[in-house]
Protein backbone atom coordinates (compact mmCIF):
# COMPACT_ATOMS: atom_id res chain seq x y z
CA UNK A 1 0.00 0.00 0.00
CA UNK A 2 2.63 2.53 1.05
CA UNK A 3 4.77 1.44 -1.88
CA UNK A 4 2.05 2.15 -4.43
CA UNK A 5 1.36 5.49 -2.74
CA UNK A 6 5.06 6.29 -3.01
CA UNK A 7 5.12 5.66 -6.74
CA UNK A 8 1.94 7.67 -7.18
CA UNK A 9 3.48 10.68 -5.46
CA UNK A 10 6.74 10.21 -7.36
CA UNK A 11 4.87 10.34 -10.65
CA UNK A 12 3.11 13.50 -9.48
CA UNK A 13 6.42 15.07 -8.49
CA UNK A 14 8.22 14.23 -11.73
CA UNK A 15 5.23 15.19 -13.87
CA UNK A 16 4.83 18.54 -12.16
CA UNK A 17 8.56 19.28 -12.50
CA UNK A 18 8.50 18.41 -16.19
CA UNK A 19 5.54 20.72 -16.60
CA UNK A 20 7.48 23.55 -14.89
CA UNK A 21 10.39 23.12 -17.26
CA UNK A 22 8.39 22.72 -20.46
CA UNK A 23 5.52 25.13 -19.93
CA UNK A 24 5.98 28.61 -21.35
CA UNK A 25 3.80 30.48 -18.87
CA UNK A 26 5.57 31.22 -15.55
CA UNK A 27 2.27 31.48 -13.70
CA UNK A 28 1.28 27.90 -14.49
CA UNK A 29 4.82 26.81 -13.69
CA UNK A 30 4.60 28.23 -10.18
CA UNK A 31 1.32 26.49 -9.50
CA UNK A 32 2.66 23.22 -10.92
CA UNK A 33 5.73 23.49 -8.72
CA UNK A 34 3.58 23.99 -5.61
CA UNK A 35 1.78 20.79 -6.57
CA UNK A 36 5.09 19.00 -7.13
CA UNK A 37 6.44 20.11 -3.75
CA UNK A 38 3.26 18.94 -2.04
CA UNK A 39 3.89 15.51 -3.57
CA UNK A 40 7.44 15.61 -2.31
CA UNK A 41 6.19 16.47 1.18
CA UNK A 42 3.95 13.42 1.01
CA UNK A 43 6.98 11.30 0.06
CA UNK A 44 8.83 12.67 3.09
CA UNK A 45 5.93 11.63 5.30
CA UNK A 46 6.02 8.15 3.79
CA UNK A 47 9.73 8.06 4.58
CA UNK A 48 8.85 9.02 8.16
CA UNK A 49 10.77 12.28 7.95
CA UNK A 50 7.97 14.20 9.61
CA UNK A 51 9.93 17.32 10.50
CA UNK A 52 11.30 17.72 6.99
CA UNK A 53 7.87 16.99 5.53
CA UNK A 54 6.33 19.76 7.59
CA UNK A 55 9.14 22.14 6.61
CA UNK A 56 8.61 21.24 2.97
CA UNK A 57 4.99 22.36 3.16
CA UNK A 58 5.71 25.45 5.27
CA UNK A 59 8.92 26.71 3.70
CA UNK A 60 8.93 25.46 0.12
CA UNK A 61 5.33 25.06 -0.96
CA UNK A 62 4.35 27.89 1.35
CA UNK A 63 6.85 30.71 1.72
CA UNK A 64 9.19 30.25 -1.24
CA UNK A 65 6.56 29.52 -3.85
CA UNK A 66 4.37 32.38 -2.63
CA UNK A 67 7.40 34.63 -3.09
CA UNK A 68 7.74 33.36 -6.65
CA UNK A 69 4.06 33.88 -7.32
CA UNK A 70 4.30 37.36 -5.88
CA UNK A 71 7.17 38.32 -8.16
CA UNK A 72 5.52 36.80 -11.22
CA UNK A 73 2.39 38.84 -10.51
CA UNK A 74 4.30 41.99 -9.58
CA UNK A 75 6.41 42.01 -12.70
CA UNK A 76 3.55 40.72 -14.84
CA UNK A 77 6.08 38.46 -16.54
CA UNK A 78 5.02 37.75 -20.11
CA UNK A 79 4.94 34.17 -21.24
CA UNK A 80 7.63 33.32 -23.73
CA UNK A 81 5.15 31.19 -25.65
CA UNK A 82 5.85 32.90 -28.94
CA UNK A 83 9.29 31.30 -28.96
CA UNK A 84 9.33 27.52 -28.75
CA UNK A 85 11.29 26.61 -25.67
CA UNK A 86 13.74 23.94 -26.65
CA UNK A 87 15.46 24.95 -29.88
CA UNK A 88 15.81 28.54 -28.73
CA UNK A 89 18.43 27.54 -26.26
CA UNK A 90 20.79 26.62 -28.93
CA UNK A 91 20.86 30.29 -29.69
CA UNK A 92 21.71 31.35 -26.13
CA UNK A 93 25.19 30.04 -26.19
CA UNK A 94 25.30 28.74 -29.77
CA UNK A 95 24.74 25.17 -30.90
CA UNK A 96 27.84 23.65 -29.33
CA UNK A 97 26.72 24.74 -25.91
CA UNK A 98 23.47 22.84 -26.40
CA UNK A 99 25.34 19.79 -27.67
CA UNK A 100 27.75 19.94 -24.76
CA UNK A 101 24.85 20.29 -22.34
CA UNK A 102 23.11 17.24 -23.79
CA UNK A 103 26.27 15.14 -23.62
CA UNK A 104 26.77 16.32 -20.09
CA UNK A 105 23.21 15.46 -19.06
CA UNK A 106 23.56 12.04 -20.67
CA UNK A 107 26.78 11.37 -18.77
CA UNK A 108 25.17 12.55 -15.58
CA UNK A 109 22.18 10.24 -15.99
CA UNK A 110 24.54 7.38 -16.70
CA UNK A 111 26.57 8.05 -13.56
CA UNK A 112 23.57 8.44 -11.27
CA UNK A 113 21.94 5.42 -12.85
CA UNK A 114 25.06 3.40 -12.13
CA UNK A 115 25.14 4.63 -8.56
CA UNK A 116 21.48 3.76 -8.11
CA UNK A 117 22.12 0.28 -9.51
CA UNK A 118 25.01 -0.11 -7.11
CA UNK A 119 22.49 0.22 -4.30
CA UNK A 120 20.59 -2.86 -5.43
CA UNK A 121 22.30 -5.06 -2.87
CA UNK A 122 21.29 -3.20 0.31
CA UNK A 123 17.90 -2.77 -1.25
CA UNK A 124 15.40 -2.56 1.56
CA UNK A 125 15.09 0.63 3.60
CA UNK A 126 15.02 -0.37 7.27
CA UNK A 127 12.43 1.23 9.55
CA UNK A 128 13.88 3.77 11.96
CA UNK A 129 12.68 6.44 14.32
CA UNK A 130 14.78 9.43 13.36
CA UNK A 131 12.50 11.89 11.62
CA UNK A 132 10.71 13.36 14.60
CA UNK A 133 10.97 17.03 15.52
CA UNK A 134 12.63 16.26 18.83
CA UNK A 135 15.39 14.18 17.26
CA UNK A 136 16.19 16.64 14.48
CA UNK A 137 15.94 19.50 16.98
CA UNK A 138 18.30 17.83 19.41
CA UNK A 139 20.92 17.28 16.71
CA UNK A 140 20.47 20.84 15.50
CA UNK A 141 21.23 22.41 18.87
CA UNK A 142 24.02 20.12 20.00
CA UNK A 143 26.29 18.76 17.32
CA UNK A 144 25.10 21.13 14.63
CA UNK A 145 25.24 24.29 16.72
CA UNK A 146 27.94 26.00 14.65
CA UNK A 147 26.27 25.24 11.28
CA UNK A 148 23.03 26.51 12.79
CA UNK A 149 24.67 29.81 13.69
CA UNK A 150 26.22 30.05 10.24
CA UNK A 151 22.81 29.48 8.69
CA UNK A 152 21.45 32.36 10.73
CA UNK A 153 24.29 34.52 9.44
CA UNK A 154 23.39 33.47 5.90
CA UNK A 155 19.81 34.58 6.46
CA UNK A 156 21.01 37.90 7.89
CA UNK A 157 23.06 38.51 4.77
CA UNK A 158 20.12 37.62 2.55
CA UNK A 159 17.91 39.98 4.54
CA UNK A 160 20.31 42.88 4.15
CA UNK A 161 20.73 42.18 0.47
CA UNK A 162 17.04 41.91 -0.24
CA UNK A 163 16.15 45.13 1.53
CA UNK A 164 19.05 46.96 -0.06
CA UNK A 165 18.52 45.75 -3.62
CA UNK A 166 14.77 45.77 -3.90
CA UNK A 167 14.01 49.09 -2.24
CA UNK A 168 13.51 51.92 -4.66
CA UNK A 169 15.05 54.63 -2.54
CA UNK A 170 17.09 54.17 0.59
Amino acid at each position, binding site marked *: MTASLFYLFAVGLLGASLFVVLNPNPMYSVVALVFGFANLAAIYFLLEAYFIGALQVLVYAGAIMVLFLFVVMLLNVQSDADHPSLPRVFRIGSWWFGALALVFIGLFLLLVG*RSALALLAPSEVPPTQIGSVSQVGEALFTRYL*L*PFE*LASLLLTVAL*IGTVFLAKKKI
Partner: protein
Amino acid sequence: MNAADILSTLPELVLTVTALGLLLLEVMGKPPRARFVWVALGGVGLALGLEFAVPSEGQFYAGMISVDLFTRFFNVLFLTTAAGSLLISVPYLRRTLEERGEYYALTLFATVGMMFMAKAHDLTITFLGLELLSVSLYILVAFYRNRVRSNEAGLKYLLLGAFSTGFFLFGIALIYGSTGTTHYDGIRLAIGSGEQLSMALTVTGFGLLIIGFAFKVALVPFHMYAPDVYEGAPTPITAFVSTGPKVAGFAAFLKVIATAFAFTTQHWWGILWILAAITMTVGNITALRQDNLKRMLAFSGVAHAGYLAIAIMVGSADSAFALLFYLAAYAITTLGAFGIVSLIEGEDESGLDMDSYRGLARRSPYLAGVFALIMLSLAGFPPTAGFLGKFFIFSAAIDEGYTWLVIIAVVNSLISVYYYLRPVVAMYMQEPADESAVAVPAFIVPVLLLVVLVALGLGLFPMSLVKNSIAAAGSLF
Protein backbone atom coordinates in the same frame (compact mmCIF):
# COMPACT_ATOMS: atom_id res chain seq x y z
CA MET B 1 30.14 24.04 23.45
CA ASN B 2 32.74 25.43 25.78
CA ALA B 3 35.24 28.28 26.02
CA ALA B 4 37.78 26.56 23.78
CA ASP B 5 35.19 26.40 21.03
CA ILE B 6 34.54 30.12 21.26
CA LEU B 7 38.25 30.90 21.31
CA SER B 8 38.83 28.84 18.19
CA THR B 9 36.45 31.04 16.21
CA LEU B 10 37.36 34.34 17.85
CA PRO B 11 38.55 36.06 14.62
CA GLU B 12 35.33 35.13 12.83
CA LEU B 13 33.28 36.35 15.78
CA VAL B 14 35.10 39.68 15.77
CA LEU B 15 34.41 40.15 12.07
CA THR B 16 30.74 39.24 12.50
CA VAL B 17 30.29 41.65 15.38
CA THR B 18 32.06 44.40 13.42
CA ALA B 19 29.79 43.81 10.44
CA LEU B 20 26.66 43.89 12.59
CA GLY B 21 27.96 47.07 14.25
CA LEU B 22 28.41 48.70 10.87
CA LEU B 23 24.83 47.82 9.95
CA LEU B 24 23.62 49.39 13.19
CA LEU B 25 25.65 52.53 12.50
CA GLU B 26 24.14 52.71 9.03
CA VAL B 27 20.59 52.98 10.35
CA MET B 28 21.50 55.81 12.74
CA GLY B 29 19.97 59.17 12.01
CA LYS B 30 23.07 60.64 10.42
CA PRO B 31 25.50 57.83 9.79
CA PRO B 32 29.19 58.83 10.02
CA ARG B 33 29.92 57.09 6.73
CA ALA B 34 33.41 58.50 6.25
CA ARG B 35 34.50 56.57 9.36
CA PHE B 36 32.96 53.23 8.36
CA VAL B 37 36.05 52.06 6.58
CA TRP B 38 38.11 52.60 9.73
CA VAL B 39 35.65 50.53 11.77
CA ALA B 40 35.80 47.75 9.18
CA LEU B 41 39.60 47.87 8.97
CA GLY B 42 39.79 47.92 12.76
CA GLY B 43 37.73 44.73 12.86
CA VAL B 44 39.95 43.07 10.28
CA GLY B 45 43.10 44.19 12.12
CA LEU B 46 41.77 42.91 15.45
CA ALA B 47 40.87 39.56 13.86
CA LEU B 48 44.35 39.36 12.38
CA GLY B 49 45.91 40.10 15.76
CA LEU B 50 43.73 37.51 17.51
CA GLU B 51 44.75 34.94 14.94
CA PHE B 52 48.24 35.14 16.44
CA ALA B 53 47.44 36.18 20.02
CA VAL B 54 44.98 33.32 20.69
CA PRO B 55 46.23 30.37 18.67
CA SER B 56 44.13 27.19 18.82
CA GLU B 57 44.90 23.74 17.59
CA GLY B 58 42.63 20.77 17.07
CA GLN B 59 38.97 20.12 16.38
CA PHE B 60 36.18 22.22 17.83
CA TYR B 61 32.37 22.43 17.90
CA ALA B 62 31.95 18.66 18.03
CA GLY B 63 34.41 18.16 15.19
CA MET B 64 32.74 20.65 12.87
CA ILE B 65 35.91 22.68 12.36
CA SER B 66 39.60 22.00 12.71
CA VAL B 67 42.15 24.70 13.39
CA ASP B 68 45.83 24.32 12.61
CA LEU B 69 48.65 26.03 10.72
CA PHE B 70 46.83 25.44 7.44
CA THR B 71 43.79 27.42 8.55
CA ARG B 72 45.94 30.11 10.08
CA PHE B 73 47.84 30.56 6.83
CA PHE B 74 44.59 30.99 4.94
CA ASN B 75 42.98 33.19 7.56
CA VAL B 76 45.88 35.59 7.32
CA LEU B 77 45.60 35.55 3.53
CA PHE B 78 41.82 36.08 3.62
CA LEU B 79 42.08 38.93 6.10
CA THR B 80 44.83 40.61 4.07
CA THR B 81 42.75 40.26 0.93
CA ALA B 82 39.71 41.68 2.71
CA ALA B 83 41.71 44.64 4.05
CA GLY B 84 43.17 45.31 0.61
CA SER B 85 39.81 45.14 -1.07
CA LEU B 86 38.30 47.49 1.54
CA LEU B 87 41.12 49.96 0.91
CA ILE B 88 40.78 49.99 -2.86
CA SER B 89 37.00 50.29 -2.55
CA VAL B 90 37.02 53.56 -0.61
CA PRO B 91 38.04 56.00 -3.41
CA TYR B 92 35.73 54.25 -5.86
CA LEU B 93 32.76 54.32 -3.49
CA ARG B 94 33.33 57.98 -2.66
CA ARG B 95 33.68 58.93 -6.30
CA THR B 96 30.40 57.24 -7.16
CA LEU B 97 28.66 58.43 -3.96
CA GLU B 98 27.78 54.91 -2.87
CA GLU B 99 29.74 54.63 0.36
CA ARG B 100 27.42 52.70 2.63
CA GLY B 101 27.65 50.49 5.69
CA GLU B 102 26.14 47.51 3.87
CA TYR B 103 29.08 47.40 1.48
CA TYR B 104 31.65 47.03 4.24
CA ALA B 105 29.44 44.68 6.25
CA LEU B 106 28.94 42.37 3.28
CA THR B 107 32.66 42.32 2.56
CA LEU B 108 33.25 41.22 6.15
CA PHE B 109 30.51 38.56 5.99
CA ALA B 110 32.05 37.20 2.81
CA THR B 111 35.40 37.02 4.60
CA VAL B 112 33.82 35.07 7.46
CA GLY B 113 32.47 32.64 4.88
CA MET B 114 35.93 32.17 3.39
CA MET B 115 37.49 31.61 6.81
CA PHE B 116 34.97 28.90 7.61
CA MET B 117 35.61 27.22 4.28
CA ALA B 118 39.24 26.77 5.24
CA LYS B 119 38.41 25.73 8.81
CA ALA B 120 35.65 23.31 7.85
CA HIS B 121 36.12 19.73 8.95
CA ASP B 122 32.61 18.67 7.99
CA LEU B 123 30.92 19.13 4.63
CA THR B 124 28.08 20.97 6.40
CA ILE B 125 30.45 23.79 7.29
CA THR B 126 32.15 23.72 3.88
CA PHE B 127 28.74 24.15 2.29
CA LEU B 128 27.52 26.90 4.62
CA GLY B 129 30.81 28.82 4.44
CA LEU B 130 30.73 28.63 0.67
CA GLU B 131 27.17 29.90 0.57
CA LEU B 132 27.82 32.70 3.05
CA LEU B 133 30.65 33.81 0.76
CA SER B 134 28.61 33.37 -2.41
CA VAL B 135 25.42 35.09 -1.28
CA SER B 136 27.41 38.07 0.04
CA LEU B 137 29.20 38.29 -3.29
CA TYR B 138 25.99 38.08 -5.32
CA ILE B 139 24.75 41.13 -3.45
CA LEU B 140 28.06 42.96 -3.75
CA VAL B 141 28.24 42.34 -7.50
CA ALA B 142 24.74 43.78 -7.88
CA PHE B 143 25.52 46.52 -5.37
CA TYR B 144 25.19 49.41 -7.83
CA ARG B 145 21.43 49.01 -7.94
CA ASN B 146 20.89 51.61 -10.61
CA ARG B 147 23.48 50.25 -13.03
CA VAL B 148 21.90 47.73 -15.36
CA ARG B 149 25.26 46.04 -15.93
CA SER B 150 25.78 45.56 -12.22
CA ASN B 151 22.29 44.01 -11.81
CA GLU B 152 22.83 41.73 -14.76
CA ALA B 153 26.20 40.58 -13.53
CA GLY B 154 24.68 39.89 -10.11
CA LEU B 155 21.80 37.91 -11.59
CA LYS B 156 24.08 35.91 -13.82
CA TYR B 157 26.45 35.16 -10.95
CA LEU B 158 23.56 34.14 -8.73
CA LEU B 159 21.83 31.87 -11.22
CA LEU B 160 25.02 30.08 -12.22
CA GLY B 161 26.23 30.01 -8.63
CA ALA B 162 22.97 28.42 -7.49
CA PHE B 163 23.20 25.98 -10.37
CA SER B 164 26.69 24.92 -9.32
CA THR B 165 25.55 24.67 -5.69
CA GLY B 166 23.05 22.07 -6.88
CA PHE B 167 25.89 19.89 -8.17
CA PHE B 168 27.95 20.48 -5.06
CA LEU B 169 25.06 19.42 -2.84
CA PHE B 170 24.16 16.38 -4.91
CA GLY B 171 27.78 15.34 -4.58
CA ILE B 172 27.60 15.71 -0.81
CA ALA B 173 24.33 13.75 -0.76
CA LEU B 174 25.88 10.82 -2.63
CA ILE B 175 28.98 10.85 -0.44
CA TYR B 176 26.78 10.92 2.64
CA GLY B 177 24.72 8.11 1.17
CA SER B 178 27.76 5.97 0.62
CA THR B 179 29.69 6.67 3.81
CA GLY B 180 26.87 7.61 6.19
CA THR B 181 28.61 10.77 7.37
CA THR B 182 29.63 14.24 6.22
CA HIS B 183 32.57 14.48 8.60
CA TYR B 184 35.96 14.52 6.86
CA ASP B 185 37.50 11.95 9.20
CA GLY B 186 34.41 9.75 9.01
CA ILE B 187 34.51 9.77 5.21
CA ARG B 188 38.18 8.85 5.22
CA LEU B 189 37.63 6.02 7.68
CA ALA B 190 34.65 4.67 5.75
CA ILE B 191 36.58 4.65 2.48
CA GLY B 192 39.71 3.27 4.10
CA SER B 193 37.97 0.44 5.95
CA GLY B 194 35.78 -0.44 2.97
CA GLU B 195 32.62 0.17 5.01
CA GLN B 196 31.14 2.43 2.39
CA LEU B 197 27.88 1.38 0.77
CA SER B 198 29.25 1.42 -2.74
CA MET B 199 32.39 2.67 -4.38
CA ALA B 200 30.43 3.87 -7.43
CA LEU B 201 28.37 6.14 -5.23
CA THR B 202 31.39 7.72 -3.55
CA VAL B 203 33.17 8.22 -6.84
CA THR B 204 30.13 9.82 -8.49
CA GLY B 205 29.64 12.04 -5.46
CA PHE B 206 33.23 13.17 -5.56
CA GLY B 207 32.94 13.93 -9.27
CA LEU B 208 29.93 16.16 -8.62
CA LEU B 209 31.85 17.85 -5.81
CA ILE B 210 34.60 18.62 -8.35
CA ILE B 211 32.02 20.28 -10.62
CA GLY B 212 30.83 22.41 -7.72
CA PHE B 213 34.36 23.55 -6.89
CA ALA B 214 35.23 24.00 -10.56
CA PHE B 215 32.42 26.53 -10.87
CA LYS B 216 33.59 28.49 -7.85
CA VAL B 217 37.21 28.70 -8.97
CA ALA B 218 36.22 29.16 -12.65
CA LEU B 219 37.74 26.15 -14.39
CA VAL B 220 36.85 25.73 -18.08
CA PRO B 221 34.13 24.73 -19.11
CA PHE B 222 32.50 26.01 -15.92
CA HIS B 223 33.97 29.49 -16.28
CA MET B 224 31.40 31.05 -18.60
CA TYR B 225 30.07 33.36 -15.92
CA ALA B 226 33.47 34.74 -14.92
CA PRO B 227 34.23 37.30 -17.66
CA ASP B 228 30.72 38.75 -17.67
CA VAL B 229 30.54 38.93 -13.89
CA TYR B 230 34.01 40.44 -13.59
CA GLU B 231 33.25 43.03 -16.24
CA GLY B 232 29.80 43.97 -14.97
CA ALA B 233 30.71 44.21 -11.28
CA PRO B 234 32.06 47.47 -9.85
CA THR B 235 35.88 47.28 -10.18
CA PRO B 236 36.80 46.97 -6.46
CA ILE B 237 34.29 44.13 -6.19
CA THR B 238 35.83 42.53 -9.23
CA ALA B 239 39.10 42.56 -7.31
CA PHE B 240 37.44 40.77 -4.41
CA VAL B 241 35.44 38.32 -6.57
CA SER B 242 38.50 37.34 -8.57
CA THR B 243 40.61 36.60 -5.49
CA GLY B 244 38.41 35.60 -2.55
CA PRO B 245 36.35 32.71 -3.96
CA LYS B 246 39.32 31.41 -5.90
CA VAL B 247 41.61 31.26 -2.87
CA ALA B 248 38.87 29.95 -0.57
CA GLY B 249 37.68 27.46 -3.19
CA PHE B 250 41.15 26.01 -3.67
CA ALA B 251 41.77 25.96 0.08
CA ALA B 252 38.57 23.98 0.73
CA PHE B 253 39.14 21.78 -2.31
CA LEU B 254 42.65 20.88 -1.17
CA LYS B 255 41.50 20.22 2.38
CA VAL B 256 38.63 17.97 1.25
CA ILE B 257 40.87 15.98 -1.07
CA ALA B 258 43.68 15.65 1.45
CA THR B 259 41.67 15.12 4.64
CA ALA B 260 38.43 13.42 3.58
CA PHE B 261 39.66 11.44 0.59
CA ALA B 262 43.36 11.14 1.39
CA PHE B 263 44.08 11.48 -2.35
CA THR B 264 42.35 8.15 -3.02
CA THR B 265 40.18 9.49 -5.82
CA GLN B 266 42.31 8.63 -8.82
CA HIS B 267 39.18 7.92 -10.87
CA TRP B 268 38.89 11.59 -11.54
CA TRP B 269 42.54 12.40 -12.13
CA GLY B 270 42.10 11.98 -15.90
CA ILE B 271 39.23 14.45 -15.84
CA LEU B 272 41.20 16.91 -13.70
CA TRP B 273 44.16 16.56 -16.04
CA ILE B 274 41.98 17.54 -18.99
CA LEU B 275 40.27 20.30 -17.00
CA ALA B 276 43.62 21.81 -16.04
CA ALA B 277 44.94 21.63 -19.60
CA ILE B 278 41.90 23.17 -21.31
CA THR B 279 41.49 25.75 -18.55
CA MET B 280 45.01 27.06 -19.09
CA THR B 281 44.70 27.00 -22.84
CA VAL B 282 41.23 28.50 -23.19
CA GLY B 283 41.97 31.14 -20.54
CA ASN B 284 45.17 32.29 -22.18
CA ILE B 285 43.97 32.15 -25.79
CA THR B 286 40.83 34.10 -24.97
CA ALA B 287 42.76 36.64 -22.93
CA LEU B 288 44.88 37.38 -26.00
CA ARG B 289 41.87 38.84 -27.77
CA GLN B 290 40.61 41.08 -24.98
CA ASP B 291 40.99 44.82 -25.19
CA ASN B 292 39.11 45.55 -21.98
CA LEU B 293 41.51 45.28 -19.02
CA LYS B 294 38.85 43.86 -16.69
CA ARG B 295 37.98 41.10 -19.16
CA MET B 296 41.64 40.41 -19.83
CA LEU B 297 42.35 40.00 -16.13
CA ALA B 298 39.24 37.82 -15.83
CA PHE B 299 40.52 35.39 -18.44
CA SER B 300 44.00 35.55 -16.98
CA GLY B 301 42.38 34.52 -13.68
CA VAL B 302 40.83 31.55 -15.48
CA ALA B 303 44.26 30.60 -16.80
CA HIS B 304 45.76 30.83 -13.31
CA ALA B 305 43.02 28.54 -12.01
CA GLY B 306 44.33 26.04 -14.55
CA TYR B 307 47.87 26.20 -13.15
CA LEU B 308 46.47 25.83 -9.65
CA ALA B 309 44.41 22.81 -10.71
CA ILE B 310 47.69 21.10 -11.61
CA ALA B 311 48.84 21.49 -8.03
CA ILE B 312 45.55 20.03 -6.74
CA MET B 313 45.86 17.07 -9.06
CA VAL B 314 49.47 16.25 -8.30
CA GLY B 315 48.52 15.85 -4.65
CA SER B 316 51.95 15.60 -3.06
CA ALA B 317 53.20 17.55 -0.07
CA ASP B 318 55.37 19.59 -2.44
CA SER B 319 52.48 20.51 -4.67
CA ALA B 320 50.30 21.46 -1.70
CA PHE B 321 53.00 23.85 -0.51
CA ALA B 322 53.35 25.20 -4.06
CA LEU B 323 49.59 25.75 -4.22
CA LEU B 324 49.67 27.82 -1.03
CA PHE B 325 52.61 29.90 -2.21
CA TYR B 326 51.04 30.49 -5.60
CA LEU B 327 47.67 31.44 -4.10
CA ALA B 328 49.28 34.03 -1.82
CA ALA B 329 51.23 35.60 -4.70
CA TYR B 330 48.26 35.47 -7.07
CA ALA B 331 45.73 36.95 -4.63
CA ILE B 332 47.81 39.95 -3.65
CA THR B 333 49.04 40.83 -7.14
CA THR B 334 45.58 40.47 -8.70
CA LEU B 335 44.14 42.66 -5.97
CA GLY B 336 46.73 45.30 -6.82
CA ALA B 337 46.05 44.98 -10.54
CA PHE B 338 42.34 45.68 -10.09
CA GLY B 339 43.17 48.48 -7.65
CA ILE B 340 45.17 50.25 -10.35
CA VAL B 341 42.52 49.52 -12.99
CA SER B 342 39.95 51.18 -10.72
CA LEU B 343 42.20 54.28 -10.55
CA ILE B 344 42.59 54.58 -14.32
CA GLU B 345 38.87 53.94 -14.83
CA GLY B 346 36.96 57.11 -15.66
CA GLU B 347 33.34 58.13 -15.22
CA ASP B 348 30.65 55.72 -16.42
CA GLU B 349 33.05 52.79 -16.59
CA SER B 350 35.13 54.30 -19.38
CA GLY B 351 38.91 54.07 -19.49
CA LEU B 352 39.06 50.29 -19.23
CA ASP B 353 40.61 49.68 -22.64
CA MET B 354 44.27 49.28 -23.47
CA ASP B 355 44.47 52.81 -24.95
CA SER B 356 43.85 54.39 -21.56
CA TYR B 357 47.23 53.04 -20.42
CA ARG B 358 49.20 54.74 -23.18
CA GLY B 359 52.11 56.70 -21.82
CA LEU B 360 51.20 56.04 -18.20
CA ALA B 361 54.91 55.80 -17.41
CA ARG B 362 55.29 59.45 -18.27
CA ARG B 363 52.13 60.52 -16.48
CA SER B 364 52.67 58.61 -13.23
CA PRO B 365 55.97 56.73 -13.23
CA TYR B 366 55.52 55.00 -9.85
CA LEU B 367 52.03 53.75 -10.64
CA ALA B 368 53.19 52.49 -14.02
CA GLY B 369 56.15 50.79 -12.35
CA VAL B 370 53.93 48.92 -9.90
CA PHE B 371 51.52 47.91 -12.65
CA ALA B 372 54.37 46.65 -14.80
CA LEU B 373 55.68 44.67 -11.83
CA ILE B 374 52.25 43.10 -11.33
CA MET B 375 52.03 42.13 -14.99
CA LEU B 376 55.51 40.61 -14.89
CA SER B 377 54.65 38.66 -11.76
CA LEU B 378 51.41 37.35 -13.25
CA ALA B 379 53.27 36.39 -16.40
CA GLY B 380 55.87 34.62 -14.29
CA PHE B 381 59.08 36.52 -14.99
CA PRO B 382 61.97 36.05 -12.59
CA PRO B 383 62.68 37.40 -10.00
CA THR B 384 59.03 37.90 -9.04
CA ALA B 385 56.86 35.84 -6.69
CA GLY B 386 54.73 34.74 -9.65
CA PHE B 387 57.78 33.08 -11.20
CA LEU B 388 58.59 31.20 -8.02
CA GLY B 389 54.97 30.05 -7.64
CA LYS B 390 54.94 28.63 -11.16
CA PHE B 391 58.37 27.10 -10.64
CA PHE B 392 57.28 25.31 -7.44
CA ILE B 393 54.09 23.97 -9.03
CA PHE B 394 55.80 22.79 -12.20
CA SER B 395 58.68 21.10 -10.44
CA ALA B 396 56.29 19.34 -8.03
CA ALA B 397 54.32 18.12 -11.04
CA ILE B 398 57.44 16.89 -12.82
CA ASP B 399 58.52 15.02 -9.71
CA GLU B 400 55.26 13.09 -9.85
CA GLY B 401 55.64 12.39 -13.55
CA TYR B 402 53.18 14.83 -15.11
CA THR B 403 55.67 15.96 -17.74
CA TRP B 404 53.19 16.54 -20.56
CA LEU B 405 50.95 18.67 -18.42
CA VAL B 406 53.92 20.79 -17.41
CA ILE B 407 54.91 21.20 -21.05
CA ILE B 408 51.40 22.44 -21.85
CA ALA B 409 51.59 24.78 -18.86
CA VAL B 410 54.96 26.21 -19.91
CA VAL B 411 53.75 26.82 -23.46
CA ASN B 412 50.74 28.54 -21.96
CA SER B 413 52.91 30.73 -19.77
CA LEU B 414 54.81 31.80 -22.88
CA ILE B 415 51.56 32.69 -24.65
CA SER B 416 50.43 34.68 -21.64
CA VAL B 417 53.54 36.85 -21.83
CA TYR B 418 52.09 38.49 -24.93
CA TYR B 419 48.94 39.84 -23.33
CA TYR B 420 50.57 40.70 -20.02
CA LEU B 421 53.15 42.78 -21.85
CA ARG B 422 50.58 44.68 -23.92
CA PRO B 423 49.69 47.17 -21.17
CA VAL B 424 53.38 47.41 -20.25
CA VAL B 425 54.25 48.32 -23.84
CA ALA B 426 51.39 50.80 -23.93
CA MET B 427 52.59 52.42 -20.71
CA TYR B 428 56.25 52.69 -21.61
CA MET B 429 56.44 52.96 -25.39
CA GLN B 430 53.42 54.95 -26.46
CA GLU B 431 52.54 58.61 -26.26
CA PRO B 432 49.97 59.63 -23.64
CA ALA B 433 46.73 61.25 -24.74
CA ASP B 434 47.05 63.81 -21.95
CA GLU B 435 50.00 64.51 -19.70
CA SER B 436 48.18 64.95 -16.39
CA ALA B 437 49.28 62.65 -13.58
CA VAL B 438 46.81 60.07 -12.29
CA ALA B 439 45.68 60.97 -8.78
CA VAL B 440 46.62 58.19 -6.35
CA PRO B 441 44.40 58.35 -3.25
CA ALA B 442 46.09 57.69 0.08
CA PHE B 443 43.93 54.57 0.60
CA ILE B 444 45.51 52.79 -2.35
CA VAL B 445 49.12 53.43 -1.30
CA PRO B 446 49.34 50.66 1.34
CA VAL B 447 47.90 48.16 -1.14
CA LEU B 448 50.51 49.13 -3.73
CA LEU B 449 53.28 48.85 -1.14
CA LEU B 450 52.01 45.40 -0.17
CA VAL B 451 51.98 44.38 -3.82
CA VAL B 452 55.59 45.47 -4.27
CA LEU B 453 56.52 43.70 -1.07
CA VAL B 454 54.88 40.46 -2.21
CA ALA B 455 55.70 40.48 -5.91
CA LEU B 456 59.30 41.65 -5.67
CA GLY B 457 60.20 41.13 -2.00
CA LEU B 458 59.00 37.53 -1.92
CA GLY B 459 60.52 36.97 -5.33
CA LEU B 460 63.94 37.92 -4.01
CA PHE B 461 63.62 36.69 -0.42
CA PRO B 462 61.00 33.94 -0.54
CA MET B 463 62.13 31.96 2.50
CA SER B 464 59.63 33.39 5.01
CA LEU B 465 56.59 32.53 2.89
CA VAL B 466 58.11 29.24 1.79
CA LYS B 467 58.61 28.18 5.41
CA ASN B 468 55.09 29.17 6.36
CA SER B 469 53.48 27.46 3.39
CA ILE B 470 55.45 24.27 3.97
CA ALA B 471 54.37 24.24 7.60
CA ALA B 472 50.78 25.01 6.65
CA ALA B 473 50.64 22.37 3.93
CA GLY B 474 52.35 19.94 6.29
CA SER B 475 49.43 19.98 8.71
CA LEU B 476 47.26 18.42 6.02
CA PHE B 477 49.39 15.32 5.64
